[in-house]
């Protein structure tokens, strides 16, 4: 709207006129991202983000996980100054996102979910435009561009139009353009969606390098595996609210327990000398007996014990450790064990469980507080988060030197 725009222009003018101004801690803030009760409601009433609070320290590699439509992209757009929050406060590198927009923009890099490069220009020209747009001094641009082309392995094709690049090469170029000005903080919105594993690994390697060099990274992803490979800390968003946070290891430990499945039979397997009354008792309900034994003391208080048609399913972090003891205990109680299986759920299964709200009591388990779980699921911004499929076949010819 005109009013907002005028205000922004005025703010820009202020920033430009007095570049040495320091306010609200500015560059001295310890936090790269500080949000308090961030909310964003679209004009059609869709509540995309509902009270997200984040404190991300400088130098962190922070992961923001969630399914499509959870509010990841909306959140990142607010943090990157593309959307004004409709509630709460947001400071980036110490600057308020609405009042000090130009200062925020000058200190962050932003890589959108959809690859955004000018396909008519060469890789070098794309970087040159980004350098100029971010005010990199003219005499340093050539060096900076060469440095970045090397970093993303595009030096060989630097002077070819980007329209001929494969999906992975375009993504790498896009990432490089977000970094021309050495931003203190870079936002990466699902940077590897649609890439094959090889291209993905190259990007991961690149992101690690920029983080090692001191840049704070804020990454959104749908893949827990990606977050696990890269991030120091994670927050999981669902329906616009954060439902879980912690290190990848803690998250896996907390919710990534193994599943022990035991099927029990009706007759005892302890031998012919077993007392007849025990066998009869077990025959009446061996499943209940097994469940009672499982609940008793074998797996600790955090385990979940469920009964199935044929036996019990125990979800626990101690399945491998205590599984054998449990089976022995069953046999001692005269319960026949017909099948015994320990499954480790994939990380994506774990993520799906969180995303679908099948793990509602996460917070209670390890004592780390998280926001309340919400019941209703709005359509949110499904279309804004649509995945992209990318052709990566041309990549293989020039990617033999990958280091992972």
């Amino acid at each position, binding site marked *: *709207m*005109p009013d*907002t*725009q005028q205000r922004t*222009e005025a703010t820009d003018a202020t*920033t*430009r006129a*007095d*570049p*040495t*101004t*320091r306010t609200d801690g*500015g*560059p001295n803030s310890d936090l790269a991202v500080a949000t308090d009760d961030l909310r*964003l409601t*679209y*004009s059609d009433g869709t509540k995309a983000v509902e009270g997200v609070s984040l404190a991300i320290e400088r130098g962190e590699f922070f992961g923001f996980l969630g399914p499509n439509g959870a509010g990841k992209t909306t959140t990142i757009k607010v943090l*990157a*100054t*593309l*959307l*004004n929050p*409709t509630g709460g406060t947001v400071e980036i590198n110490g*600057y308020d996102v609405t009042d*000090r927009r*130009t*200062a925020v*923009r*000058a*200190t962050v890099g*932003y890589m*959108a979910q959809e*690859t*955004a*490069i*000018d*396909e*008519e*220009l060469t890789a070098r020209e794309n970087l040159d*435009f980004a350098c*100029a*747009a*971010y*005010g*990199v*001094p003219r005499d*340093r641009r050539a060096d900076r561009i060469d*440095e*970045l082309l*090397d*970093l993303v392995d595009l030096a060989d094709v630097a002077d070819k*139009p980007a329209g001929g690049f494969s999906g992975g090469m375009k993504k790498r170029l896009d990432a490089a353009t977000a970094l021309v*000005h*050495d931003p*203190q903080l870079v936002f990466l919105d699902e940077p590897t969606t649609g890439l094959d594993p090889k291209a993905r690994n190259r990007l991961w390697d*690149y992101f690690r*390098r920029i983080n090692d*060099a*001191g*840049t704070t990274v804020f990454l959104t992803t749908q893949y827990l595996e990606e977050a696990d490979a890269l991030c120091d800390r994670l927050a999981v968003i669902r329906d616009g609210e954060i439902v879980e946070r912690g290190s990848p290891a803690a998250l896996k430990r907390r919710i990534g327990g193994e599943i022990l499945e035991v099927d029990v039979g009706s007759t005892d397997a302890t031998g012919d000398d077993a007392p007849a009354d025990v066998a009869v008792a077990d025959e009446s309900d061996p499943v209940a007996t097994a469940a009672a034994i499982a609940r008793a003391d074998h797996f600790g208080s955090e385990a979940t014990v469920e009964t199935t048609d044929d036996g019990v399913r125990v979800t626990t972090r101690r399945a491998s450790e205590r599984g054998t003891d449990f089976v022995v205990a069953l046999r001692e109680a005269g319960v026949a064990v017909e099948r015994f299986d320990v499954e480790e759920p994939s990380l994506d299964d774990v993520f799906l469980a969180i995303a679908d709200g099948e793990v509602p009591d996460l917070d209670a388990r390890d004592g780390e507080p998280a926001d309340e779980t919400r019941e209703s699921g709005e359509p949110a911004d499904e279309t804004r988060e649509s995945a992209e499929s990318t052709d990566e076949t041309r990549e293989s010819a020039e990617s033999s030197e990958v280091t992972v």
Partner: protein
Amino acid sequence: MSTPGIDSGSTDESSPAGPPTGNSFLGDVRVNFTRWNRKAIRNPTAFLLEIVIGLFSLVLFAAVFGDVGEFALAEAGYGDVGYITYLVPAVLMQATIGSSFNSGIGLVGDLQTGMFEKTTVAPMSWTAVFAGKAASEVLRIVVQLSAVLGLAVVLGANVETGLPGAVAVVAVCLPVGVLFMAISNVVGMLARDEEVLNAATMLFMFPLLFLSPAFIPISSDIELLATFNPVTYGVDAVRAIILGEDVMTVLDVTAFGGVWNTLVPAVAVLVALDVVFGALAVWLLGRASSADAD
């Protein structure tokens, strides 16, 4: 491998303690001006086609309408004007309108590829972003019109006012160009689709050209419609300079004398339309660049 990142602050050496601030307004304009010029050079087909279409029209219309045209000119009192000379304003307007619509097509391209958002998130003034783009488009129109006009002279068209007149001809096409650039940006912002814009180019170009004195002097039947047609003013202004006389067809102004009786009112009408449609386009672009949730 060189270090990927940290020499923080060195991009802002003059004030290491303050927030980096990007460029000056004019610096931002130049950055975007350069980008769009590079794109035009990289992909010159559309640019060259506009010149070819202009020449093609000139030759074609002269061949098809030549005899009828000469007759109509004689009837309307232009007996001493060659038809090809009379046609020059028509092809210049056609080239101007066709080229101006590329502005909206460029905008739609940026909206679709994410470059619009990428440019928005950079620490540049959004008005400078669009000013740079528009400046590049105006430059392109100037080059195209100069080429078409030069080749028209080679083909036998006569500019009575000479080289200064030729420069003035290109100059008075620009308010028409700015008007259709604004319209194409409005259409582009609303439709966000390149095919719609291509269709819109045709929708605007031919009815407006034929409802003006571009090809033959207008009859009294369409005079009212021609009065509300911005192309009429562009055609009249260009023709006044080419012939060196007052040729205004729809307004009767006598206060300025000679050519100026056409030029002053025509340019005034065009500039007024530029302000109205320019403001609408700027408002829509500003809204799209703003961070309001909608």
